[in-house]
C-alpha cells in the first residue's frame, strides 16, 4: 500500500482549520475552492485536508459572524460564494494565534528540557 511509505499524518486539532481559513481570508475575499487551493499550496501539501471539510467550517464561521458571504464571480467566470473576513473574525484569529503560539512555546520548552 502506498500509505505505508507516506509519512503518517496527524489529525488537526480543533480550531486549526478555522484559523487557517481566517488567515487565508486576511488577504482578501476568496471562494471555497480558492481557499482550499491556497491552504494546500502554502502548506506545501504537508497538510492534507479533505476539501469538503471546508464547508462545515465555513458554515460554522458564518454562524459565528467571523466571515461574511456574498455571491460573486470566480476567475473562471463561474458564479461562486465569496467569503470576507469580518472585524470580529480578525479579532478572533488574533486571539487564537497568540494563544496557539503561547502553547507551542510552552510545549517547545518542555521538550527542550526533557532532551538528554
Amino acid at each position, binding site marked *: 500500500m502506498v500509505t505505508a511509505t507516506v509519512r503518517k499524518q496527524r489529525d488537526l486539532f480543533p480550531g486549526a482549520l478555522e484559523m487557517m481559513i481566517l488567515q487565508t481570508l486576511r488577504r482578501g475575499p476568496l471562494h471555497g*475552492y480558492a481557499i482550499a487551493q491556497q491552504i494546500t499550496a502554502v502548506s506545501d501539501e504537508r497538510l492534507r485536508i479533505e476539501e*469538503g471539510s471546508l*464547508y*462545515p467550517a465555513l458554515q460554522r464561521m458564518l454562524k459565528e459572524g467571523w466571515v461574511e458571504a456574498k455571491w460573486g464571480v470566480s476567475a*473562471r467566470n*463561474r458564479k*461562486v*460564494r465569496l467569503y470576507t473576513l469580518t472585524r470580529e473574525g480578525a479579532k478572533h484569529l488574533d486571539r487564537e494565534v497568540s494563544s496557539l503560539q503561547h502553547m507551542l512555546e510552552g510545549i517547545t520548552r518542555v521538550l527542550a528540557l526533557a532532551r538528554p
Partner: protein
Amino acid sequence: MTWIARLLPERRDRELADEIQAHLDEKVEALVESGMPRVAAELAARRAFGNVTLTTERARAVWRRPWLDVWRADVRYSCRQLRRHRASTLVAVASIALGICATTAASAVLYGVLVEPYPYRDADRIIHLHVFASGGFLYDLPLSSAQFDEFKRSPGVDAAMAMDVETMTATAGDLPEAVNAAFLSLDSFAFLGVPPLLGRTLTAEDARDPHAPDRVAVLSYRFWQMRLGGSPDIIGRALELDHRSYQVVGVMPKRFAWWNSDVYLPLARSSDPDRLATVFARLPSGMSDRRAEQVLQPLIERLAVERPGGLPSEFHVRVLHMNEIAAGQTAGTLRMIGLAAVSLLLIACANVSILLLARGTTRTGELVTRVALGASRGRLVSQLVTESLVVSSLGAAAGFLGAYEIVELVPRFLPTDVFPAESVLRVSVPVLALNIAAAALCGMAAGLWPALEICRRPEIFAASRSHGSMAGTDGSPAHSHRALVVSQVALAVVLLAGAGAAMRTLVALRRAALNYDPRNLSSIRIDLRDGTYRDWPSRVRFFEELQEAVGEAPGVGPVALSQTDLPPATPFHSSAVEIPGRARDSGAAALVSEVSENYFSTVGLAIGKGRPWTRRETERAARVAVVNAAMAARFWPGGDAVGQWVYLPDLRATTAWALAAPGNDGWVQIVGVAADVPNVGLNRSAAPAIYVPYTLVASDSVRIIARGADRPYPVIHAVAEEVKGIDPDQPVGPLQSATELVDSQGWSRERAASTLFGLLAVMGLLLAAAGLYSVISCLVAQKRHEFSIRLALGAERGAVVRMVVASVLEPTALGIGIGVVFSVLGDAVLTRWTEASVKDPWVLAAAALALLLTAVVAAGAPAYRAASLDPMAGLRNE
C-alpha cells in the same frame, strides 16, 4: 426582506448545494486545463472533496437546533398517537378543558373583584376612614371642611378627597327625576387619577371662591348614555338641577363609577362645623395599616373633641381599604370557589395521567422497540411528556374559549351587590398568563409521572419480553393507577363536601325565621333636596302629611315611616348604650332604627311586652323606645325592660342633614319589647336593637313603608302622586320590595355560591367517574388472561364481576377516607372565609355515598365485559 430569507433553511440548503457544485466544477476545470481527461478529472475532484452528502449534512447541521427538530418530531408523533386513540384523547382533552375553563373563569373573577376592582390610581392604598367603637360597631368618620384641611396635612396620609352625596332633581323635564349627585372636593379627580372620556374633570379653577364654586358638572358614563343619549356634543351644554343651571364640562369613562353617582359637582367649602363630608385618603406608599392607624389616632381624637356626640366616647381608628370594601363578605366565598376550581383542575390532571398510564401498558411493545433502536430513557420520558403537553394545550385552548364566554355570564349568576360597579370581569392578560402557566404545569406533571413510571418498568429496558400484551400483570402500573384514583376520589369528596356545606347554609337561611311578613311590603326612599325643610317642625310636618296622604290612596294598605332600610338589612346607625345605676359596660351597644309609631303594625312585627308608642308621641318626639327581645334579654335578663331609661349618646348627634328634636337629650324610656327580626344576616341571631321615634333625629332621607293590598306596585304610584301634590319638585326614589330585599340581602350570595360550588362538584364527580372508568377498563384489559382462566376453570360470572368491582371499591374507600380527613382539616381554613362548615357529618356521608355509587356505576360496564369474556378466546390468544 433578505434577512428573513436567510433564516429559511430551504434557501440556505440550496445555496450550500450550489456552492459545493461550483467548487467541484472549478476543480474539474482546473484539472482539465492541466491536461487530465474529463472523466478522470471528475473522479479526482470528488476524491479530493470527500463524501459530498456527508459534507453537506455536516454543514447543514451547523445551523440546526437539534432540540427543536426532536421536539417537532415528538409533537408530530404525539398527534399521531392521540389520533389513533380518539376516545381516550377526547376524554383527556375534555377533562383539561373543563378544569382550565373553571380555573380561568374563577381567576378572572378573583382578579376583577379582589386584585383590581377599581380603575383608580393606587387603589390598593385608598382607604375609607372609620373608627371602631368599643361596642364592636364601625362608625364612618365624616369631617368638616376645617377638619379635612387639618387631616390632609397629617403624615399618615399621602393625599385625600372629601365627598358629600345628595339626591338632586333634574328639573328641566316634565317629571322631576332623581339624580344622584356627588359633590367632590376639587382635588378628587387628581386623587382618583382617571382621565375623562370627554372634556375635562373638575379642577381648582372651578372654585375661585371656595364657598361658592362655579356651577359645573362632570357626568358619569351611565348617566350620559341613559339620560342624555350619549350625545357627543354634550360638553358646554346646560344641565338643570334643582332649578339651577350647571354647565357640563366633562364625561367620565365607563369604568369610572365612583359611588354610583350620576353627576360630579364641585364641593363647596363650608364654615358650618356640622356640614360634614365623607373622607377618602391614600396611605403613603410603604406605610402599614397599623402604623397609619397609630399616626391618625391622636389626630382623630382631637377632632372628636370638637364635635361632641359625633363619635363614641372610646374608639380606635381603623383604616378600611377600598379593595376590602369592594369584595366584602364575598371575598371568602370567591376564594373558596377559586380553590374548588383548582381542585377540579387537579382531578382533570389525574385523568390525563391515568389515560397515559393506561395507554402505556398496552404500548410496551412500541417502547421496547424504541429502546432497542437506541432511544435513551430521557427521550422516552420527553416523548411521553410531550404527549401530555399536547393534550393539555388542546384542552387549555378549548378551556380558554369556554372561559371567555362564561365570564360574561358570571355577573348574571351573582347578586349585583357582590361586585363594585367599577370591576371588570374578563380574561385579562395576567389571568391568561397565569392559566397558561397552570395548563403547562398540569401537562408537565400529568405526563412526567406516568412517563417515569413506565420507564421504570423492568421489561422495557431488559428487553426480555418482546410482546406487550402480556406485560403489566405485575403490580407496578396498577399501583400508580391506584394512587391516582385515590387522589381523584379524595379531591372529589372535598369538592362535594364544600358544595354540600354551601347548600346546607342556603337551606338554613331559607328556613330562618323572619318574624315579620315581607309579602307585598315595600319601601320608597324620599331624599329631601338640600336646603329644603331645614327646620325641625316643617320637616316633621312634611313627612307626617305625606304619610297620611299615601295611606289614604287606593290600593295602599297600612303605611309607616322609617329612616333605615327594611329588615333583614342592618340599620345604618348604632349607638353605645348606658344604663343608669350600672357600671359602664364598654361593649354595650345597639343598632338604632328611627321609625314612626305604626312601623310595628305595618311591618307585622309583634310587640311581646308593653306597647308601641303613640302617634302623639311621634309628633312631639317623646323620649320613648321599643327594644328587641335580644336587647331586653341582654341588658335586663330579669324581664323588667319595660319602664327602664337608657342613655344613647349617639342619638344627640346633629349634622347638617339630621335635625335633633327640641328636648332630645339622648335619654329614652323603654315602653315595649318587640320580637327579634334578623338584622345582621339571616343566619345569625339578632343583635340588640332599639327603635325610637324618627322625629327625635329627623333625617333628610326617609323611607315610606307601605303594604299594598295585594301587590306592592300600586304603592309607587300613590307615593309619586302624593309627593307631587305636596311638593312638585321633590323626587321620589326607587321602590324596594321586601321580598326582593330578603332575597338579595338574605341569601342571594349563598344561592350563587351553592350553585357555582354544586356545578364544580358535579363536574369533579364526572371527571372522577371518567378516571375510574378508564382505570377499570385498563385493569380488565390487562387481566383478560387471568379472567379467561378463571372462567375456564368454572368461576361464576358473578364472582368475576365482584372481583372487578371490589378492585375499584378498595381505592375508592381509601380516597373517601382521605377526602373526609382533608375536609375536616380544611374546615379551619374555610370557616375563616365563610360561615359554611364542611364538618357536617350528614354532608360528608352524602359525599361518600355519592362517590361509592359513582365507583360502582363506573365499574359496571368493564365488569360486565370481564364477565362475558369467552374463556376459549382468551386462552387461544396465548
